[in-house]
Structure formats: C-alpha cells, structure tokens
C-alpha cells in the first residue's frame, strides 16, 4: 500500500522544484566553502596547525555551520512543495476519499520527503569529494568520515522533517510553515551550543557531524555524541510520525 503511495507521490512531484531542492544543500555548502578556501586559505591553514589536524578535517568542521542551516531550510522547502502539490488543485478531498488508510497517505508523503533529503545527503558526498580534489585537501582522504558527514547530518533531522511536513499540510498558507522553518533552523544553531538544549531536535543538524571541537584542548576530535543524536533522531522522529499520522487520520474536516 505504502509502496503504491510513494510511487504515486513521486509521479506527482514531476515538474516541481523538488529536484532543485535536493541539490540546494550540497550546492550552497560547496559554494560557501569555495569562498572560504579562495578568500582566506591562509586562515584555514593556520586553523589546521592550531588544531593539529589536516585540511580535510578543517573542511568537515567548517562546512557543518552552513550545513546546519541549509538542511532545515531544504527540509522546510521540500515539505512545503510536497504539501502544496495537494493544496494547489484542491486535491486533498479527492485523495482522502480514496479507499486507502488516511495515515498511509501521510506516511507516504513523509517517505517522499525522507527520500529527497537522503538523496541530498548522497549528493553532498560527491560535492565534498569534488571539493577536496579541487582544492587539493590532501591525499589522506577520510572516506568513512566523508560518508558519515554527508549522510548522517541529514539522517539526524527526521523530527524536523515530520514537524515541517505536518505544518505544511495542516496550514494551507505556506508562508507560515516556511517562516517557522527559517526561524527554527536559526534557533537550532543556538540550541546546539549549550549542553542541555543540544538534545532539542533543531540542534541535531549542527551536532550531526563526525568531527567536533573540544573546547578545552581546542583540538578537533571525533564527535562522541553522534551515535546518541542519531538514535534520538530516529526514536523521536518515528514517535512524532506515529502521533502526527494519527492526528492527520483523525481530522474531522477535510
């Protein structure tokens, strides 16, 4: 059932801006780091020396700041596009009168969003690799870390996906969902900095990197929280999805 839903949803996403949105996060990260390494390469080299590590690690550490903004923004836009497909042509009433479970309609749309965002992660992998080769960040390519840093930050954002999709679906005027998405992605940067609020889902994109700064020694270390953040993202995300799909199915008026 869900499989058919996704196939239908993929078809409906034709000719929408969903595909460009998949490239949004990788592209912005790539461009941001390009300016960084072109304009102030000496700063980056100096940072690498201070933190006693290589340029690859500095790149992975630095790109997370822009990524932590572009991931929630891509999610916000993608969720809005997916919901808007149904809003625009008054299609909800047709869809909800079909002989399918209402909750699976919601889950189908979520899976499309999840797929698009994961794809964004995969594209990021190639964008990082291309960047590293282009700027010659060194021969010691950290393959596993590259993979982790491209896919995991996206996988850490499941609760945000559910939240944004629900907002976009339940409130027809998309400016509301987009404003909320933009503000909360910025709030996430601040949440990520405190040891307590870093467990709020909006902080996950920033803390979803494989590298992290040890504030005491000022060295870059492997992120010890990453595994917990991933688990949190899946547990909270799936819990939220169940609650929200239930709310969606129970709605009295369509």
């Amino acid at each position, binding site marked *: 059932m869900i499989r058919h839903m996704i196939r239908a949803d993929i078809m409906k996403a034709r000719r929408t801006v969903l595909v460009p949105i998949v490239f949004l996060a990788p592209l912005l990260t790539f461009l941001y780091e390009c300016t960084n390494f072109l304009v102030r390469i000496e700063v980056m080299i100096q940072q690498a020396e201070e933190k006693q590590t290589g340029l690859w690690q500095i790149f992975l550490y630095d790109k997370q700041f822009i990524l932590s903004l572009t991931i929630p923004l891509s999610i916000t836009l993608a969720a809005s596009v997916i919901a808007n497909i149904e809003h625009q042509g008054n299609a909800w009433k047709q869809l909800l*009168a079909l002989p399918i479970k209402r909750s699976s309609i919601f889950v189908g749309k979520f899976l499309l969003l999840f797929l698009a965002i994961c794809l964004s992660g995969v594209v990021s992998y190639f964008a990082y690799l291309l960047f590293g080769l282009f700027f010659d960040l060194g021969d010691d390519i950290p393959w596993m870390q590259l993979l982790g840093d491209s896919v995991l930050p996206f996988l850490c954002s499941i609760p945000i996906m559910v939240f944004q999709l629900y907002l976009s679906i339940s409130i027809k005027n998309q400016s509301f969902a987009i404003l909320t998405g933009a503000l909360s992605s910025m709030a996430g940067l601040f949440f990520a900095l405190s040891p307590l609020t870093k467990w709020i889902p909006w902080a996950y994109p920033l803390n979803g990197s494989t590298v992290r700064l040890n504030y005491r020694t000022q060295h870059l270390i492997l992120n010890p929280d990453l595994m917990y953040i991933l688990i949190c993202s899946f547990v909270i995300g799936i819990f939220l999805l169940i609650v929200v799909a239930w709310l969606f199915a129970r709605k009295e008026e369509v």
Partner: protein
Amino acid sequence: MTNYVVETEQLTKKYKEQTIVNKIHLKVKEGDIYGFLGPNGAGKTTTIRMLLGLATPTSGNICVFDLPLQTRRIDISKHVGSLVESPSYYGHLTGYENLASLARILQVPQQRIEEVLEIVRLSEVANRLVKNYSLGMKQRLGIAAALLFKPKLLILDEPTNGLDPSGIQEIRELIKELPVKYGMTVIVSSHLLSEIDQMATQVGIINKGQLLFQDSIEMLRKKSEPSLKIGTDNLEEAKKFLQQKGIVTTLKEGYLWTPSIAKEAVSTINYELISAGYDVFELTYYKPSLEQIFLEITGKEKSL
C-alpha cells in the same frame, strides 16, 4: 436488509451552534439517478462530504451498500467515485498523468485510464498540462477520475457548475448513460431544478438543512398539474354555491381554485356563476412550473 445503496438516519451536522444538516433521512435505491436539490447554502455539499467520509456527522448514521460508513469507510470507498465542489487536479501534470497518479494508488491498469479519458472525451488533450485546461475540461477530468475504478456509486456535487451550455449538455448526457451502460447508481446535486428534471429519476429537496421532499421525479411533476383560477366577487358565497353544484374549489390569494379544467367543466362553472348573478372577471388556466414548485417547497419565494 434494505436494498438501498445509500441510507442515512437522523443525519445531523452542526458547526458550533449552527445546524447545517438537520436529521435527514436519505434513501437512494440501486440504479437511481438521485437528484439532490437545494438552494446555495442548503447543506448539500456538507451532506455529500459526510457521505464520503470527508466530514464527520455530529449525530446520525450513514449506511452505504448496507455497511456502516463510520467503521467500514475503506471497504465502501472502493466502490464510490466522487467529485466534490470545485474539481481536484494537479495542474503541473498532464491529464493522463493526473489519472495515472490515482491509478497507481488504486492499482488500476493503464488501459482503464485511456477508457475513462475516452468516456469524458479528453483523449485528444490527454498530454496537455491540466493548468492549461478550461474549467469544463478540469470538471470532466474530475469525472474521469471518479470513474477510474468502475464505482458502483458515483457522487457528483454540482458537476455542471461553471460550465457553458454545451458543456452542461455533455455532462448531462454522460450522467444519464451511466446507470444504463455501467449499472451505476448516481447521486448528483444541483441548485437548478431544470437540470435535475432532465436527468434524475428520484429527487430530494433540501433547504436550511432539512429534507423537504424525497420521492420520484414524477411525484414532483404531479404537483405541477394545472388548475383553474376563478376570479369572482363574493368569494365565500360563490364557493358555497359551486359546492352545491358539485364543484369543489379552494380559496387562495383572493381567487377560487379548482382542478376541474375540462372544457365543459369550465363552461359549466362560468354559466352557473353568471346565472346565479355572480360577476366573473377572470377564468384562467394556471400551470405552475417546476421552478415555482421548488421555490414554494423551499420557501425562497419571499426572499427573492
């Protein structure tokens, strides 16, 4: 069990304090074209939304195919095609893709898409984007979508809304064919009696949330049988006088009315009245149109 395709009991919908649909008992038999008639804001769309499970009734029951809608919505909706209010469509897809996206969910073979496009005569524009369709084409696409999985019951809410006369004609012909060709039962709502008159077999008239009339279209037509309008002075006495002569009349709006309209009867009445010394200043046939009956039933005459 009953042999009704759709049956509602005490169906009621309230929004806050306002009662939109008030205890209505709809009964739709198999093979009927049920015309659901009422002025704008009478509660037609709300009722139809409840029949489709798009709105939850405040109280009352709905049975479709003898199954309770509340618990068996999915089983029921496998056999119900619908078009509610404005057409639903994906503007950035072609007409064909619109139907294909539904066909994927419903597991309908591709060949059926072409069939329904043929039925609603959209085959030629199937590969054009729907946002470039005219309203009539979108409406027909909506009907195609409703027909996609060969429903036993088709629910159409104002399907001819916003169409030009030829479009209206086309949809009307299409709806009339459905029970004959495919054995479907059709519920079609409208605020125009003339439209229902031309296709429905059964009629339900709703106003202010109440079902005022529900019977065959013939019964409604019977209400429009002609009568004779007699204008005379001294109405009360004239009425008694005619009664003695065996002619039953009723007094209404300052005239006497009688259903005897044969030529001889009219002559007799005229002769008797004048012989008895009454002034007769008017003798006319009066045949109310269905529209007038509709207005009478819904009580809208005064407000118009």
